[in-house]
C-alpha cells in the first residue's frame, strides 16, 4: 500500500464529490484543442511529459510579464514579490506530499537531479568499499546510472531486485538481498515502462528494520497517487514538475531534515552560503544549502500553480477516472489479435505498454502519429526491463486525467490500421 487511505485502485472517492468532468478539464489545456496531421490530437504520452493547463501557462506569463526578479537578496518590491511566490510553492509542495517541514523541500531540475543529489551527497558519505546499494530491475536509467557511478567510485556493489513476468518486484528476493553491507535502497514508486505500483511502504519498512535508508523515484507516481512522505517514512522522495502538469526543468527532492542537515552540499555557489572568505565558507541552512545559484524561479512558481490545479481537481477524482480508463484500455487492447501487454501487475497506474506480433514498435508509433495519436516507442530508458522481457522495445500509451474512453477507442482503431498498413 502506498498511502494511508484511498490510494489503491480502484479508488472510489471518499467524499461526495461528483466524478471528474473530463470535457471541462480538457478545456483547461489549450494544446489539446488542436489538430495534428489533420486529426484531433490524441495525446497518450503523458509518462514522458504531461500537458500544461492554462492556469500554469498564465502563471508563467504573469511572472515574466509582471513579477520577474531575482530572489532572496533583493530589497526592492519585485524581488520581495518573487521571493514570496517562490517560497509559497515550497509550502504548497510540503502540503502536497505531507512533509513535516518546509526545509525538507529542495528544488532541483527534476527527478534525475534529485537522484544524483542523493547519490553524490548522501551516497558518497555513506557508501564505501565492499558496501552495497539495492535498486530494482524496473528502474529508469536515472535510478541506475547515478548508483553505478557511485559504486564504481567507491568500489561498492549494485544489487538488483528481480521482477516476475507480470512486472512485479519479487519481495522475497529483496529481503534476501538486504544485508549488513546494504547502505541504501533506491526504488521506483511507479514504473514508467510497466505501470507497476510498487509496495514501497513495505519496502521501506523492511529496509528500516535493518537500519537502511530508502530513496524513492516518484516521477511517475506524483501525477497519479496521493503522496504522504511521513506515512511512507521514506528518507528521500523525488519527482519532476513537468510530469505533474508543470514546467520542464523543475522538480522536487524531499529529504528528512536529519539527513539533509548531515549531508555536504551538492553544488557550490551563491545562495547556498552564509559567509565566504578565501579561508572558510559557512554553508547556508536547509534547504538553501542545496539550492546553489539562481534557481528556476518561474519554474518553481509554475509548479506551485500546477499542484494547486491538481489539488483543485482532487487526486481521488483523478485516481477514479484513471482507474476506469486503465480498466477500459486493458479490456480493449487485450482483445486485439497479436497484441501483448507488457506489464500486467495487479496494482498498476494508467500505463499501457504493448508489443504487436511482427510489427516493430517504431512502425506502430509512426503509423499512429499519422492519425494524430501520440504514443512513445522504444525502451523508455529502461533497457534492463526490455531485456527481462526479451524484447527490444515496446509501444506505450500513458494516460492522464484529461484522457477519454473515446481516445482509447481511437488508439484501438489506429492499432487495427497499423496491421492494415504493415500487411
Amino acid at each position: 500500500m502506498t498511502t494511508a487511505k484511498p490510494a489503491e485502485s480502484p479508488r472510489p472517492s471518499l467524499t461526495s464529490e461528483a466524478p471528474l468532468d473530463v470535457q471541462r478539464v480538457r478545456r483547461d489545456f489549450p494544446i489539446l484543442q488542436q489538430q495534428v496531421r489533420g486529426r484531433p490530437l490524441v495525446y497518450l504520452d503523458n509518462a514522458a511529459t504531461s500537458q500544461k493547463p492554462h492556469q500554469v501557462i498564465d502563471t508563467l506569463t504573469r511572472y515574466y510579464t509582471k513579477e520577474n526578479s531575482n530572489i532572496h537578496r533583493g530589497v526592492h518590491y519585485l524581488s520581495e514579490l518573487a521571493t514570496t511566490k517562490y517560497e509559497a510553492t515550497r509550502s504548497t509542495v510540503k502540503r502536497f506530499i505531507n512533509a513535516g517541514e518546509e526545509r525538507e523541500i529542495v528544488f532541483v531540475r527534476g527527478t534525475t537531479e534529485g537522484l544524483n543529489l542523493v547519490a553524490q551527497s548522501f551516497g558518497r558519505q555513506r557508501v564505501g568499499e565492499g558496501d552495497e546499494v539495492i535498486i530494482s530491475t524496473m528502474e529508469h536509467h536515472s535510478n541506475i546510472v547515478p548508483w553505478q557511478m557511485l559504486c564504481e567510485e567507491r568500489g561498492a556493489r549494485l544489487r538488483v531486485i528481480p521482477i516476475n513476468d507480470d512486472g512485479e518486484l519479487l519481495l522475497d528476493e529483496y529481503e534476501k538481498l538486504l544485508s549488513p553491507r546494504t547502505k541504501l535502497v533506491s526504488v521506483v514508486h511507479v514504473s514508467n515502462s510497466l505501470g507497476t505500483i510498487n509496495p514501497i511502504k513495505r519496502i521501506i519498512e523492511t529496509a528500516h528494520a535493518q537500519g537502511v535508508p530508502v530513496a524513492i523515484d516518484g516521477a511517475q507516481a506524483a501525477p497519479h497517487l496521493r503522496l504522504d512522505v511521513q506515512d511512507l517514512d521514506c528518507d528521500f522522495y523525488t519527482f519532476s514538475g513537468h510530469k505533474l502538469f508543470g514546467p520542464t526543468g523543475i522538480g522536487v527532492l524531499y529529504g528528512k531534515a536529519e539527513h539533509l542537515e548531515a549531508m555536504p552540499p551538492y553544488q557550490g555557489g551563491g545562495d547556498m552560503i552564509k559567509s565566504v572568505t578565501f579561508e572558510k565558507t559557512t554553508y547556508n541552512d536547509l534547504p538553501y544549502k542545496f539550492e546553489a545559484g539562481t534557481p528556476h524561479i518561474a519554474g518553481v512558481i509554475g509548479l506551485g500553480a500546477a499542484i494547486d490545479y491538481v489539488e483543485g481537481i482532487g487526486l481521488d477524482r483523478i485516481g477514479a477516472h484513471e482507474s476506469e480508463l486503465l480498466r477500459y484500455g486493458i479490456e480493449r487492447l487485450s482483445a486485439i489479435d497479436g497484441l501483448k501487454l507488457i506489464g500486467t501487475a495487479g496494482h498498476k497506474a494508467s500505463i499501457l505498454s504493448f508489443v504487436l506480433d511482427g510489427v516493430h514498435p517504431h512502425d506502430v508509433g509512426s503509423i499512429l502519429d499519422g492519425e494524430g495519436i501520440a504514443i512513445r516507442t522504444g525502451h523508455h530508458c529502461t533497457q534492463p526491463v526490455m531485456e527481462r522481457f526479451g524484447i527490444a522495445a515496446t509501444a506505450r500509451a500513458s494516460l492522464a486525467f484529461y484522457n477519454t474512453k473515446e481516445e482509447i477507442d481511437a488508439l484501438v482503431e489506429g492499432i487495427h490500421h497499423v496491421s492494415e498498413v504493415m500487411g
Partner: protein
Amino acid sequence: MSELRELYQEIVLDHNSRPRNFKEIEDADRVVEGYNPLCGDKIMLYVKFEGDTIADIGFQGTGCAISRASASLMTQQVKGRNVAQAEKLFDRFHEMVTGNVDGDLDFEDLGDLEVMAGVSNFPSRVKCATLSWHSLRSALKSQEAHVTTE
C-alpha cells in the same frame, strides 16, 4: 495518410518481411555492429572485399521495418560496387532521406533505394534508415567496429 503510404510502400514492406542478404558471412573482411541508442536496434554488417570491390555483403539483427528494409536495399545496391561508388551512394542516400540535398534533386541514380525517399517526411525515422549506411561507411573506412547513429 499519403505520406505514410509513401513511407511504407510495398517494396519497403517486402524487404522488411523478406530481407535480402540477411546472413552472416563467416569469412567477412569487416564486421561492424551498428547501434541506434534511440530505440535499441542493433545490426551486424558483414562485408567481404575483392580488391576494392564489395564482393559480398550481409546483415543480421533486429529493427523496425524502415531499418530492415533500408539495410536490405542497401546490400543489394552496393554489392559489386567499389568503395568510392559505395561512398557516393551513401552521400546521395543521406541527402535523400534527410532532405538536405546538395546534388541533383532527382534521385534516379539511387535505383531501388529511391523507395526510401518518404523517410524525409519523418525526421524521427531518418536514423532508422541510415543505421545500416553508417555501419557500411564505417566498414569501408575500417575505423571502428562499433558505430551508433548518434
